Structure formats: C-alpha cells, structure tokens
C-alpha cells in the first residue's frame, strides 16, 4: 500500500478522498491556492502545501508544482479527484516520469476512451450501440434522404463545423426533409463558412443513464450498476439516483456488459463511467466515457455498500477485485442533490460569499459530502458546489421523503443556494413518477411557477414575531453584528464564471 497520497484537488472531493485515506491509515497531503488557505480540505489535511495564486491555471492546474509537492513531501501516489487535471493525460505521464503512481487509468486509456470521437470509434469496434448516423458528411441530399428513411424519423441534421445549435435541424418526417436540408446547409455556410452536414438519429426525450465500472490491473472488470442522471440544467447534472426507474434486470445486464466490453477493449484500469442515452423503447446508445471518479459516485456507494475511493486506491496499489462481484445488485434506492452557491431566482447566478451560519442535515439514511463550514467564505474563483446531500431509502419513495426532510433541516445563511430548486423538483408529479428526460428540467423551468403557498399555517405570524424579537435584541449580540459579505461586482463575477471549468 502507499506511504502517502497527494490529493490534487480542493473542496468537497478533496475532503472525500482525504477521508478514504484516513480510513486506510494513509497520510494525506493537500494543496491550496491563495484563497484556499482556510478551506476545509486544508484544515483536515495531514500535510498541506501552498501552490500558487487563486486562478486554477496558476495553481491547481500546474502539473510541475504538483509533482514538486509530491516529491518534497514523499508521496508515492496522486489522486486527481474530478475536474481540474483528472482527465488530462499529461498528469499520469508526469507521474510515471517521476516514479509516482497515478490513481486512475493510464494516459493511453484516457486518450482512447476519454475523447468523444475516439470513444465512439472504440464503441463501434466492440459492438456497443452508438446513436445511428453518418460520421462523415454526405454531399448528396438524395443519398442522405434515403439513409434517413432507413434509419427512421425523426432525424437530425448537424453542421460538421457546428455548435451551439447553429446549423442544426430536427427533421420530423420525409416530407420535411428537402427544406430542412436547405436550411441546415445554408445556415451552416453562413455561420461557419462550411455547408457540410451529417445525419444522426434524433432521440426524443432520451434519458441519461450511466454505468459505473471498476477494473483492476489483473484483467478483471466489473459493473456496479447504473445511475440515472436525467435531471439536468443546461447539460449539467442536478439530481442523480440509483437505480433508474426504467431499469429492468435484463437492460442492466446488457448495459453493464456493453460497458465492461468497452473498458476491456480500451485497456481501462481503475474506476470509470460509461455514459449512455436511453430512448423510450429502452434502446441504449453510447455517449462517452468519463475516465475518473464522478461527482455522483456516492449514489452508487449507497446502493452497493462499496467505497469507490478506497477501491480506486487499492486498485492503483495492484490489488485484485474479488470474484464474488459478478452479481452486484443494488440494494434500496439512493438519490443525490448538488447544492450550489447560486441564486435560482436570478438565472442561477453564482453567489459566493461568507457562510454566516449553518445547520446540517443528519439522521436515518442521510449522507452529506461537503467541503464547507460556518464562517468560511466561498471563493469566487472555483465551481460553487457546496455540498452533496445524499439520501438512501428502502424504496424510491422513502429516499425522496428523506431527501425532502433533510433539505428542510439543512439551513445555510449568509449566501444564496439552489435549495429551493430541489424543493420544487421533489414535488413535481412527473419527477415523482420518474417521467424524466434530459430536457425535462429545462422545460420545467420555463413553465410558469405554481402559485406559492406558505408551507405551514401561522408561519408568517411567527416570522413577523421572530423578526421583531431579533430587532429588539441588543446589537452587541455577536451574530447580529455580522454584516453580509460585500457584494462583488457583477461584471467581475460574470467574467470569472465564464472562465470557470464547470464541474463534470
């Protein structure tokens, strides 16, 4: 086993990895930028080293500084967490050069599986279904139209040079093909100077279902089952759960086998996730591979009883996965919400600042993975993920009621959070019956809100009394004397947000 592990990350995931190290009796070394000196991962660390200014490209993304800290502190392994350098093959290469173990896949496996195009080619080679379509542009519209007919409508035409929805047309039927073709190619020509388009099958209201895999360095690959991550806001996951409400033992077996096949073909070692889209007929299509630990890994941990971070470390140290794991079936139901410092009433604008007070959620079936504390100032330089609140229950209904109960217990004051968004989602009938897809939340947010009602009678009277009582207290009261954090310039915040790497 390793002597000492360098955690090349910050925030809640650094704390999560640190906890795994503690449980294994391995000293953990943390790193911090200028604004993270007082962060929780630094306070909990066995050793901590300063690595530079706040912008991540001058600190958390500097491989040379990481390797230097690892050498100086005598680390023989590096855990990258997620985000930052976790999917950058340059880090495992630099580790190998320095004689340090990288806790994750090889640089080669990252390259063959991590990129969307390379991953798709690999999927085709090992007969993992991908979204049907032409990879290469086709010049002749008649040829494309006959292909579309064979594939079955609806289809989508996408500009080869495209992006951001430009040069993209959904074609509902054969009659609409000719005009859609003209529009897509002329729009592509105008927007990108390249009129070429390719064809793909259009999935109506697909779900995002991903398979967690573990692979050891002795050739053993296992699937730990799925996570349903269809509740997304602009392609960012918001709620994750396991098992998926559409899952059948048959589909789980097929998707698990596909993921394992892909991992074997790519020579993958360590924890990884194969993402799929699933259509309403339960056909699944390969999307991409995440060659790292996922933000939502606790969901799988809660239903399998396994500790994925400790397993990652054990695999990197050359341990074998036990054979008994052929038949892992989820137990109960787990659901995670991502609590962000952002304002759901103001277009989810990030709202970092000082946390004045906090009451955390505990009790049966509740797990809180986080990197924050009362009195800490959430820095504006990084992704504003505060906490992941995970509920486990015997059934999906119990998990949801525990999550609702925990969200009512969890109080954070001084900064705005997206807690009210979850309050809304967790009471939507469509969510409760599991009728969700990847565009569901974006659509929900455009619907008019149901008229607000007070959660309990008498609450307004009680609030008025509480406010008057608070006002009547002598202002020497320490909590009352606190002032809210200085509002930062919106221009500055927006500029930083634009440069932020949103967490995966």
């Amino acid at each position, binding site marked *: 086993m390793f002597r000492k592990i360098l955690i090349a990350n910050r925030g809640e995931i650094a704390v999560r990895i640190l906890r795994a190290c503690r449980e294994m009796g391995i000293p953990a070394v943390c790193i911090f930028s200028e604004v993270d000196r007082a962060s929780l991962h630094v306070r909990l660390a066995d050793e901590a080293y300063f690595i530079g200014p706040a912008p991540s490209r001058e600190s958390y993304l500097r491989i040379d500084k990481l390797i230097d800290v690892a050498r100086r502190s005598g680390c023989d392994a590096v855990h990258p967490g997620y985000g930052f350098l976790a999917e950058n093959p340059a880090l495992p290469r630099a580790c190998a050069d320095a004689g340090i173990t990288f806790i994750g896949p090889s640089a080669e496996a990252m390259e063959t599986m991590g990129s969307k195009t390379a991953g798709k080619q690999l999927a085709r080679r090992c007969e993992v279904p991908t979204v049907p379509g032409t990879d290469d542009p086709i010049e002749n519209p008649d040829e494309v139209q006959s292909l579309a007919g064979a594939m079955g409508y609806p289809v989508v035409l996408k500009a080869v040079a495209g992006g951001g929805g430009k040069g993209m047309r959904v074609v509902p039927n054969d009659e609409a093909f000719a005009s859609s073709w003209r529009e897509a190619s002329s729009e592509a020509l105008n927007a990108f100077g390249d009129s070429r388009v390719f064809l793909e099958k259009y999935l109506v209201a697909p779900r995002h279902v991903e398979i967690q895999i573990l692979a050891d360095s002795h050739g053993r690959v296992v699937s730990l089952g799925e996570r349903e991550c269809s509740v997304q806001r602009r392609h960012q996951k918001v709620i994750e759960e396991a098992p998926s409400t559409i899952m059948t033992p048959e589909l789980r077996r097929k998707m698990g086998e596909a993921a394992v096949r892909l991992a074997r073909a790519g020579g993958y070692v360590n924890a990884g996730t194969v993402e799929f889209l699933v259509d309403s007929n339960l056909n699944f299509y390969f999307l991409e591979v995440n060659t790292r630990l996922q933000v939502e890994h606790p969901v799988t941990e809660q239903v399998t009883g396994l500790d994925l971070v400790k397993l990652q470390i054990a695999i990197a140290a050359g341990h074998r996965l036990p054979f008994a794991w052929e038949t892992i079936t989820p137990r109960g139901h787990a659901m995670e919400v991502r609590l962000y410092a952002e304002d759901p009433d103001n277009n989810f604008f990030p709202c970092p600042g000082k946390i004045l007070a906090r009451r955390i959620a505990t009790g049966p079936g509740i797990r809180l993975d986080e990197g924050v504390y009362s009195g800490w100032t959430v820095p504006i330089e990084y992704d504003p993920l505060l906490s992941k609140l995970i509920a486990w229950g015997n059934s999906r209904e119990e998990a949801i009621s525990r999550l609702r109960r925990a969200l009512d217990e969890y109080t954070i004051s001084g900064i705005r959070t997206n807690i009210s968004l979850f309050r809304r989602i967790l009471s939507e009938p469509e969510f409760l019956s599991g009728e969700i897809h990847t565009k569901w939340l974006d659509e929900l947010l455009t619907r008019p809100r149901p008229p607000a009602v007070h959660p309990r009678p008498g609450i307004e009277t009680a609030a008025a009394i509480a406010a008057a009582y608070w006002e009547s207290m002598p202002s020497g009261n320490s*909590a009352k004397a606190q002032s809210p954090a200085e509002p930062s310039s919106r221009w500055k915040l927006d500029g930083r947000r634009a440069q932020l790497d949103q967490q995966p």
Partner: protein
Amino acid sequence: MKFEVYLDSPTGKSKHVVELEKNSSTYNVSLDGQPVDADVILATPNAVSVILGGAAFEFHVAPAPGGYTLQTGSYEFHAELRDPRGWRGRRQGGLEAEGRQEIIAPMPGKVIRLLVKAGDQVESGQGLIVVEAMKMQNEIRSPKKGRIERLQAKEGQLVNAGDILAWVE
C-alpha cells in the same frame, strides 16, 4: 417595544405590527393589536425559535440589504423593520448616507403623495414620498439630512422598482 414588520416571501408582501413586552423571562406578544400566545427565544446565536399556540417554528436570521433574511427549511422571508415612534429609519442603523443620494422606488407601485417640494430642507429619516404597492402605503424616507435637489415623482404616477423619484443633496 413596538415594530412595523414588512415581510416579503414567495407568497407576496405583508405588513404586521408586532409589540413585545418583557414579562420576567418571557415576552407578552401582540400582533396587529391582538395578543397572541407566542413563546420566543434565541436558540443559537443565529436562530430564533417561536412557539405559536403550540406550533413550533425556527428561523435562521442573517443580515440582508435593508433588513434580515429569515430562513426556515427551504422557505425564506425577507424582513424590514421600522420603529413607528422614531423618525429615523432603522434601516441605516443610525448611520447617515453621504453625498448626493438618489431616492429610488423600492417596488413597483403608484406615487400617492409628495410630502416635500423641491428645495425643501429635510432631516435624515424624514418621509419624502408615499408609494402605494400591494395595497400598502410605504413612506420613502430621506437617507440623509440635506436639501431636495430635484423632485421627479408626481402624484398619481406609476413607478417601477428602481425608478429614481428624487435627489437629495
């Protein structure tokens, strides 16, 4: 002590008059002139616990622009308080603003009365303009002692939140 409490929550705005009268270790509480059975304590330095006729509530209080935020679970109130006896608005905590100040409509509504004219000398906290919104009349007060440099608002005018009503120099 008597307070005017202006509450804003997802269900809308409301105004209440709360009177707190110390009675040995507890308070006698009245709401809008009626006595209520309420037991109120400070549970933690940031949390106020209220038991209202047996129904228990807890609010986490944090300062917010103009007043406080009271959070309970994932529900939230914004509260602004005024002591009806004093001229001085408590919102500034006794501190006076400096320099030329814009008087801004805090909410959409209708200007129903002008209490001053351009050129008038005003005290800090003195009422300047009455705006009616959600059937409530709100007196907009001067943030400083000075002179009304210009009065843009007219009686009967509809205003939006953020509109400039006057300047105090």
